[in-house]
């Protein structure tokens, strides 16, 4: 298949790896039209925001104007008297007001409130949520919430944040660094002995690379609409990228079994990683619980760009030991992920990134120290290529410098060092299914770049393995960055105290004492009757009986 549209060429290069495929399948491999395209192009596909309810209420958050501050007092008296205001939520209204997203994978310590009630650690952090009959009324009332702040010193740069005496962003992690395996303040990669290899190298090439924070920029901003369903359940229409990620998070922070939550999504106007954080669903459901009415919580574009978690900035330092002929014999990384004020997913992306080093090359000595650093910035989260994009930018810009230093064609340099089937990788697994060499050759051919004859004839399936499959005879290890007081059985679980407990008692679990909904000024919502049945726990249920299903 080759075609050309508007100067854009697209071709399938079927001659590569032909003997590894059966190309005679019925449906797979066909350019079948999308199942959902008629709905999309006629504007009829329902997104979360299309599920409008009679008497739908709107939620807007009161946000910190400071990078870092203690909360002395929140005075909502004037705001509550504003037209259309139904209810104002604060941290004490959240049944379990502390969570870390990856607790669903048992990774990390609960660190982030849904609505902060003692301090804020970034500009834009929410401290209260106004629910009103219209969005404009909610916006107006937000302006009337009086908050008394005690501003604190703040830190915005990753390398400033880990210096002794830097402002403490998140006191559960020492020196503003996430703790890995209960043992170190960074993730290590140790393969061979880079320092010895540097001594034997003909050239040393060093570089510093800074990835910028980026907005995921979906056309549809993040949001959710929640409403009381009959039978003491809540329905939640959501733009989430992870249905059970968000359902599980809501279940946890609202202390509500999953069987009382009915999440509907699946058709989303772009995500790119920015719709995993599960902030809207629990807040909208909490609003529905406390008002007895349907509540919408969605970001506007400004919030999406400045309060919504961006792709975090990363800073990478690289040092290569290179021989005159272009072979890279050692590569050392020091990386800093700017996690912002809370962990979200950065801790995890670092492990993914470390497993990716040193890029698609076979290098006999590799070393990395990678830090998840807290700063007084909007928390970072996933974005397309999470954990990889920034370090690939660093690696491939660095490769260009190496090519320049040894005076080699940059494509030749990549093929010379490329990993091949059977090679040992730095994370100590054998490479298979490689195709970097072929991609580089195809591009060189298309762009009219002449490769050296040996490299033009190279293949991922040849000349790998053998001596290249061996683990290093010696690997230099160290105890740098050792921490104490954390359990070592898990990625990051802290021993002893459970910092997520103190937030619970302010509000009784709805299964034992359901909240009394505020009667709305319009008399709109019926209060939800308390559940009479005993609590059941266990697996997710698969019932499809729901009169409230709207699609």
């Amino acid at each position, binding site marked *: 298949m080759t075609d050309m549209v508007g100067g854009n060429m697209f071709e399938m290069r079927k001659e590569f790896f032909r003997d590894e495929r059966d190309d005679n399948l019925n449906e797979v491999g*066909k350019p*079948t039209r999308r199942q959902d395209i008629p709905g999309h192009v006629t504007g009829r596909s329902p997104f979360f925001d299309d599920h409008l309810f009679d008497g739908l209420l709107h939620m807007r958050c009161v946000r910190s104007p400071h990078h870092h501050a203690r909360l002395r007092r929140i005075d909502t008296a004037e705001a509550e008297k504003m037209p259309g205001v139904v209810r104002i939520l604060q941290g004490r209204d959240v049944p379990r007001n502390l969570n870390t997203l990856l607790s669903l994978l048992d990774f990390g310590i609960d660190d982030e409130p849904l609505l902060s009630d003692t301090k804020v650690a970034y500009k834009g952090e929410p401290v209260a949520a106004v629910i009103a009959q219209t969005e404009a009324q909610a916006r107006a009332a937000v302006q009337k919430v009086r908050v008394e702040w005690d501003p604190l010193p703040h830190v915005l740069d990753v390398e400033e944040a880990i210096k002794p005496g830097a402002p403490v962003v998140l006191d559960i992690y020492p020196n503003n660094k996430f703790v890995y395996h209960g043992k170190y303040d960074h993730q290590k990669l140790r393969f061979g002995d880079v320092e010895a290899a540097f001594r034997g190298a003909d050239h040393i090439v060093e570089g510093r690379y800074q990835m910028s924070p980026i907005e995921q920029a979906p056309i549809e901003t993040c949001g959710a609409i929640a409403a009381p369903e009959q039978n003491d359940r809540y329905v939640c229409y959501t733009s989430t990228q992870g*249905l059970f990620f968000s359902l599980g998070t809501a279940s946890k922070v609202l202390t509500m079994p999953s069987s009382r939550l009915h999440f509907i999504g699946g058709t989303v106007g772009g995500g790119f990683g920015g719709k995993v954080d599960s902030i809207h669903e629990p807040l909208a459901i909490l609003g529905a619980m406390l008002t007895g009415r349907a509540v919408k919580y969605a970001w506007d574009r400004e919030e999406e760009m400045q309060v919504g978690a961006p792709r975090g900035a990363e800073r990478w330092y690289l040092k290569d030991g290179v021989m005159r002929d272009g072979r890279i014999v050692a590569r050392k990384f020091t990386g800093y992920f700017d996690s912002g004020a809370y962990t979200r997913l950065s801790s995890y992306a670092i492990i993914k990134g470390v497993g990716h080093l040193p890029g698609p090359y076979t290098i006999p000595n590799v070393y990395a120290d990678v830090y998840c650093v807290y700063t007084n910035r909007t928390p970072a989260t996933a974005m397309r*290529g999470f954990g990889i994009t920034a370090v690939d930018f660093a690696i491939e810009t660095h490769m260009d410098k190496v090519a320049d230093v040894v005076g080699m064609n940059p494509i030749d340099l990549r093929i010379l060092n490329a990993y091949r089937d059977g090679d040992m990788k730095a*994370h100590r697994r054998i490479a298979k299914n490689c195709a970097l060499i072929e991609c580089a050759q195809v591009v060189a051919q298309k762009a009219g770049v002449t490769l050296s004859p040996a490299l033009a004839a190279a293949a991922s399936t040849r000349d790998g393995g053998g001596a290249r499959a061996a683990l290093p005879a010696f690997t230099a290890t160290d105890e740098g960055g050792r921490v104490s007081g954390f359990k070592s059985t898990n990625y990051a679980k802290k021993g002893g105290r459970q910092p997520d407990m103190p937030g619970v008692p302010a509000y009784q679990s709805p299964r034992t004492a359901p909240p009394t909904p505020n009667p709305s000024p319009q008399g709109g919502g019926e209060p939800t009757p308390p559940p009479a049945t005993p609590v059941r726990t266990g697996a997710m249920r*698969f019932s499809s009986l729901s009169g409230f299903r709207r699609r």
Partner: protein
Amino acid sequence: MALHTGRGFAAINYPIGMNLGGDPSQALVHANPDGKFTVALSAIDLGQGMKSVTRQIAAETLGVPVEDVYVDTADSDTGPHDMGSFASRGTHRMGNAVIMAAKEARSVMLDAAAEELEVDPADLVTDGRGNIHVKGAPSRSITTMAAAQAAQFKQGRTIAGRGIFLIPLSEVDPDTGEMTPVSTFAHAAMLVTVEVDDETGEVTVTDMQSAYEVGRALNPRLVEQQLRGGAWMGMSHAAWETTEPYYPARDHGPVDFNSYIMPGPGDLAPHHISVLERPAADGPYGGKGPGEMCANPVLPAVVNAVFDAVGVRIDELPVTPEKVLRALQAQGGAKPRRRL
């Protein structure tokens, strides 16, 4: 003052189906009595084509035409557990779960057909067009619709299947970083051509030549859409967008698409894409998932092309006119390299 042309190259690989959480995906498949199938998932279609690609996978495995399959996602009351569409796990994890569910449903469908045809189900094949027949004897056949009707109304069988795909959690060694982060990698190489204006510092991407290896291209049109859009996003990351132009300072943060600058239609460079397919052993029909990796090679390729054009290295993204001008000033003007 002049426009300088330069070319830059980058090559990358990308881990597919990150496996540090061990999180599986589930799928359910069932037939109506007329032989039309529903696949129930909780996966999210972000526009990447989740519904479409799982539909093709289900049809292929069931052995029925794609029109006979509808994918229903995501309703937590009906779709079984799935953590979500991220980390290039959707096609890989969910595709495999759908294969497992579809295999089970297919097996019941063939049992029903075998009973009607009075043959051994192991001797039956599907033609992918709605018929089941005896291997080597196409005339001894039954439609999938008739088999489904027989299952429902005569035999009392449920043509249904359950699927899950789990790769158990990988431990990570704290001291060496030893781990099994993923099971397969996708690949890409990219050469971009830029023009750099040494008076304004503006960088224009004028051409992109790429090769992407994506495992099996399950739907080449969806693959093309991902690669084209992803390369555009990479170009935008390289030279246009950021939420904090003077990072780490938080000033001048954009609040809308007037101040958050991205390339428009007039800024798009022609992109010549070649797709290579090296199937992954554990991918659904060998598929890997091109969605995340496609932006990655563009960022360094643009930076390297700027160096090629004027001899300055911009190691802090994005490559704004301000940074280029300051670097040119420090260097004493453009020094073209022309290495590629």
